[in-house]
């Protein structure tokens, strides 16, 4: 029983991190049809800025974290306007090449400014303590991560389902041409969505730094992990990303509890099986 609970708790916490970082990727891939390999770069930028603010400037975590997210958004906006605008029109392969190029530049910049060692994000006292659950202790920040993850999915649901922005976004996803024909400013929608995705990536990067530590090569190291979430969840689907991230988090955790020696083979075996059976992911629309 406690084993089962352990798997559930650790899997969900891990899954929430994956969800926060990947959801923006899923939405931009579904909406703009752009294979954005540079997405993890926004998590890196957010984390690196937060690290710099805490370590070099002595800011508190509570201030540095939102500023890190803001920095990622501040970078995403001009990038979207100046570069991604043009990338949308490219073929798949050119998109891959262009976004890989951007990733290289982000890595090289962080590497140049902060070096290639770990960029620690020391947690504040409040989050660093452990909570006793009876059968085990759990670091408080994992509970916070789960809470923030739930808040993000709820927020996204409200945004998409209940606001004018959401209606326009959904219209643009379904059919861009029609959407702009009926007077929706799709360009603005694209920019806003892209920035939202980048901001969430940064948030996930900062909160997840305990598990996926920030360092210059972060975007390349975890690129495949984030892409798997999107592929399993289905491109463009928020609920799909959520389910996939949780499912993969739990699967990965379960293999580590149950078959530690063969975790990797088992994990990828499951991915192959799933994608072979459901090529468009859980809730994916056909590409």
């Amino acid at each position, binding site marked *: 029983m406690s084993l089962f609970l*352990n*798997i559930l708790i*650790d899997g969900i*916490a*891990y899954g929430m991190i994956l969800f926060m970082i990947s959801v923006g990727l899923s939405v931009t891939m579904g909406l703009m049809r752009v294979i954005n390999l540079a997405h993890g770069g926004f998590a890196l930028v957010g984390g690196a800025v937060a690290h710099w603010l805490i370590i070099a400037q002595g800011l508190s975590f509570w201030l540095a974290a939102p500023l890190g997210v803001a920095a990622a958004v501040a970078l995403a906006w001009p990038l979207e306007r100046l570069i991604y605008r043009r990338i949308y029109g490219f073929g798949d392969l050119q998109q891959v090449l262009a976004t890989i190029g951007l990733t290289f530049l982000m890595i090289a910049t962080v*590497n140049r400014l902060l*070096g*290639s*060692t*770990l*960029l*620690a994000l*020391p947690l504040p006292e409040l989050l*660093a303590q*452990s909570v006793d659950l009876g059968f*085990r*202790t*759990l*670091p408080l920040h994992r509970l916070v991560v789960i809470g923030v993850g739930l808040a993000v999915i709820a927020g996204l649901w409200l945004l998409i389902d209940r606001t004018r922005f959401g209606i326009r976004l959904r219209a643009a996803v379904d059919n861009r041409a029609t959407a702009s024909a009926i007077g929706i400013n799709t360009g603005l929608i694209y920019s806003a969505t892209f920035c939202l995705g980048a901001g969430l990536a940064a948030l996930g990067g900062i909160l997840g730094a*305990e*598990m*996926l*530590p920030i*360092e*210059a*090569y972060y975007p390349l*190291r*975890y690129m495949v*992990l984030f892409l798997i979430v999107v592929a399993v969840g289905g491109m463009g689907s928020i609920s799909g990303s959520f389910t996939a991230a949780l499912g993969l988090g739990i699967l*990965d*955790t379960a293999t*580590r*509890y149950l078959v*530690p*020696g063969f*975790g*990797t083979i088992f994990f990828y075996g499951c991915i192959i099986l799933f994608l072979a059976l459901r090529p468009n992911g859980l809730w994916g629309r056909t590409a």
Partner: protein
Amino acid sequence: MTSRIIRLSAAATLLLSTAVAGHAETIKVGVVAPFSGPFALYGKQFQEAIEVYQAQHGTSAGEHEIEFIYKDVGGPNPDQSRALTQELLIKDQVDYLAGYVFTPNALAVAPLLDQSETPLVIFNAATSAINAQSDFYLRTSYTLWQVSAPLAEWAYEQGIREVVTTVTDYGPGIDAENAFVAAFEEAGGTILDSIRMPLSTTDFTPFIQSIREQSPDALFTFLPGGPPTFGFTKTYNENGLRDEGIMFLGTAETEESNLQAFGDAAIGLTTAYHYSADHDSDLNREFIAKNTELHPDSVTNWATIGAYDGTHVIYQMVENAGSDGPAAVESVLGMEWESPRGPLTMDPETRTVIQNVYIREVERDEESGLLVNREKGVIATVGDLGWPE
């Protein structure tokens, strides 16, 4: 044109086989290490250590000028390692090779060493089997057996009877596990479980929880540096293992370049290793002071000391034998000297240094406010225990 190539190859073979110890010449040393990518720090530290040595001892040994040539291998990549080494030997005509962070990179050049009779001083790669592949390998770092086995014996002496080993599932991790398990069981202890964690692990909670449920006296671990080590030690701490009295036993986990990033979570971690930047000796303080003077941002750690002592060995070989490879290797076998890490002997059989292994505990230094590996005990003059008999 063809004749040029023939002359070149003839010259290469000739040069490599002639012993010219008599008159002054410029001796070239090729350093192969990663200077780019996620492992770039190694290359940077090697170069810094060499510069420190040059600043202290000049750029010549005996009557020979010594010149270093650096080549970037990028990461674990034996194809590239071999190609670069070939280039160094043929184009730059180096007389000595040095560096080599990863085991496959070092292993890939063994045939080249034998053919060209060029000594290679390993600054890092820690698999025992490397040196058995060619008589021209010398090693100034350590081997995994060298630090893991003494740790196991020490742990048993401290009253630790039950241990769970949990290592990353790849060559070095398994070497460390084998060494620890063999020595600990030999001493009379019990290994409750040996967990092997996938290389791609990002969340270590499952393994830590499994260990917690078996409640051993201690856990022994080996992880690749960087993010995995960070994740593992964090998780160890946060899940209350320390509070339950499960001791952390490791080796390279608390090395200095990432130590500060761990924060207070690292305090109390116990490791056995051959070098701590906190080592209490004048030689070490001078060494670190010089490094900090030349490279203000640099963090001195085991990679720095491995390269520093390796440079010393090269200087000695050059002074003794110039560019005569076999004579040079012969001349330093059994050599004893005092290094910033403590006394060293170049083992004539394994060609890995015999050195002290220190038991350290992470503490926050009161003066500097930084985390340090404070030496608590010493196991004197340990050779490479993993040497294939």
